[in-house]
């Protein structure tokens, strides 16, 4: 990606769907360390007494965020260093959100 701070690569995949789709894109620095992630919200998830429509999981499939209703226009979650920095309806937009957050951090 032109002017990109990170190298983005595929993370986890949804193996269960007929056409496996990437659920997570990982942004690495030049040293290959994962700096940022964009993750597709999934669901529903039953937690015994509640049903969550949207769920975001990290690289180890640990829960990052639970939401009751599916967020409008926010199917992808961008997070940097374990902190959610924004949402977007499309993965490329989420990648730009993550990069913008990183740029902001570097500037400050």
């Amino acid at each position, binding site marked *: 990606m032109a002017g990109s701070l990170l190298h983005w*690569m*595929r993370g986890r995949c949804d193996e269960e769907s007929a056409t496996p789709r990437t659920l997570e894109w990982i942004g690495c620095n030049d040293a290959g360390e994962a700096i940022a992630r964009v993750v597709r919200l999934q669901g529903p998830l039953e937690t015994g007494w509640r049903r969550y429509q949207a769920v975001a999981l990290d690289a180890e499939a640990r829960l990052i965020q639970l939401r009751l209703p599916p967020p409008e226009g926010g199917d992808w979650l961008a997070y940097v260093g374990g902190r959610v920095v924004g949402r977007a309806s499309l993965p*490329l937009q989420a990648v730009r959100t993550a990069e913008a957050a990183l740029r902001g951090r570097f500037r400050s």
Partner: protein
Amino acid sequence: MPGTPLEKIRNIGITAHIDAGKTTTTERILYYTGVSHKIGEVHEGTTTTDYMEQERERGITITSAAVTCEWKGHRINIIDTPGHIDFNIEVNRSLRVLDGAIFIIEGVAGVQPQSETNWRLADRYNVPRIVFINKLDRVGADFFRAVESLREKLGIVPLPIQLPIGIEDRFQGVVDLVEMKAVIWEGGELGAKYHDAPIPEDLLEQAKEYRQLLLDTALSVDDAAMEEYFEHGDVSVATLKRCIKAGTLSGAFRPVLCGSAFKNKGVQPLLDAVVDYLPSPVDIPGIKVAAEEGEDEHAERRRIPADPNGPFAGLAFKIINDKYGSLTFVRVYRGTARTGDMLLNTTRGHKERIGRMFQMHADKRQEIKEVSAGDIVAFVGLKDTRTGDTLAAQEDPVVLERMAFPVPVIDISVEPKTKDSVEKMTIGLQKLAAEDPSLQLRTDPETGQTILSGMGELHLEIIIDRLKREYGVEANIGAPQVAYRETITRAHTETYTHKKQTGGAGQFAEVKITFEPLERNSGIVFENQVVGGAVPKEYVPAVEKGIRAQAETGVLAGFPTVDFKATLIDGKYHDVDSSALAFEIAAKACFREGMKKAGPIILEPIMDVEITTPQDHVGDVVGDLNRRRGMIQSQESAGSTVIIRAHVPLKEMFGYISDLRSMTKGRASFTMQFHHYDPVPRNIADEIMAKTA
């Protein structure tokens, strides 16, 4: 182009609201693909696809016409469909057999009611589609507002792949966001000349913004394309086109193009988009076979892949009768057939021989000897094949998924002006009804009158006109009547014993039937739950026949009874005196008695009405709608006009156009289409029953 490989065939439809420019666009396509050497115009009555006399006189499309053209090594079979809601059956059956569609949206009005109806139909048949925002040369045209109306009214993700350069009388061309270039037409006459150019400076920022949106949206359907983008900062044109096609096929988004067909701008890129983004027969999952009796209509079922070497399978989707005989239009899904071949009509269970076959070009025809998967052709010589029937090879006698037809909402009585024309009229009407499944023909059992039921006043007017022109029968017609229906509101179980002893063999049958209400549009469902042979199996069909026959005449006012379930739960028979006829009579009587106790009501058709009126007449129009028992659904401003949407009973809409004109000094217009059936209020039900008593 006989022998065109399947992947180079496109079977597409062109559809839209009335007057959005479907036929004009089709004419330009035929001109630029070299099929016709002059452009026909709707307002001059010289178009190729509007070939019927009534179409040319009225400047509207009534029947869908099939034409074939060639573009960049691809064969494109196009069906141009009517825009008027009264002829919606044509859109319905065309979308059923097409692989893709161009939806034309008017650049001034945006999405209009008929566009919405057709869009939902295309959803039902999972037709991939691209959108063409037309008439950008018109005063008030706004590309971005039209795109927004796609999002708002259709709930889709519109994806502009072009932007207009200029608007209204300054509309000159488009920005191609895929290749990031401008396409400029030199004048608006025949527009044959156009050239590529750099994107104008003043549009560059906007083009970059929309190109980013295009990449964000299109690449999200393809992980490999995303990787290409991350690696190179952009993707190749081929990759982007592949992604746009994938998203178009899956419905993830809908590509939006723009132009002015009348001013000859935007048509060639539209043809490129058909080739690039709409599917060939092999790009889409094969057609589903029909659900077995009792099977869930929505369940996943076997699909028939497009394969010219497999056993033949085709769907008859249209029948027309002309001076040469009956033509049956067939979409071939699998296999190859030749003139003289014998096929099985698997819907009706009999054999049919193909006499001759034609490639149709509107009303002109070219004889061919062979058809293969992917083709749309007309067969001659089929004896009893109707719209929606499957024709298949005997080695794999599949029945393809059936077609759904709209419900007629208006009745008129019709009788010939001279007594000696009775037979001619009956034959003519039967042939017209065989062509048009949205037209129904019946005889009123009480008055003996012939009743025609159709989709609207215009639909029936055209039928009567065709009866005169094509069959030489002049007919008197009664005032249009609302096609009321009856139904029930609660469950009731009724037992009826039919017993007759008049010397010799008697008649005996007893049935116990539960009648239950069903959801709207469920029709009539019959179920047999008799156990232990209380009603022998051979008599059960007679019970069903009796109920269905009696349901034609409802218990309140004689209107057809619909949306109920009848379950035969018990009965009695006699070894000697029982017969199918006795059970049919018992079922009819049981229906008459049972329905009266099941809370019968009368239903009336409610229309979705959209009125476009100048601001200063809104009060009058809304007040008038209220007097007509209308329920206002929405009211929105579009410049100096207001668009009012309301649900109004059809009964109150007869002759509305003249009232609307006088109320607004001819400045307002309206369209309407059937929306649903609702119970009529008590006082009106009493009026209806008093009239029919």
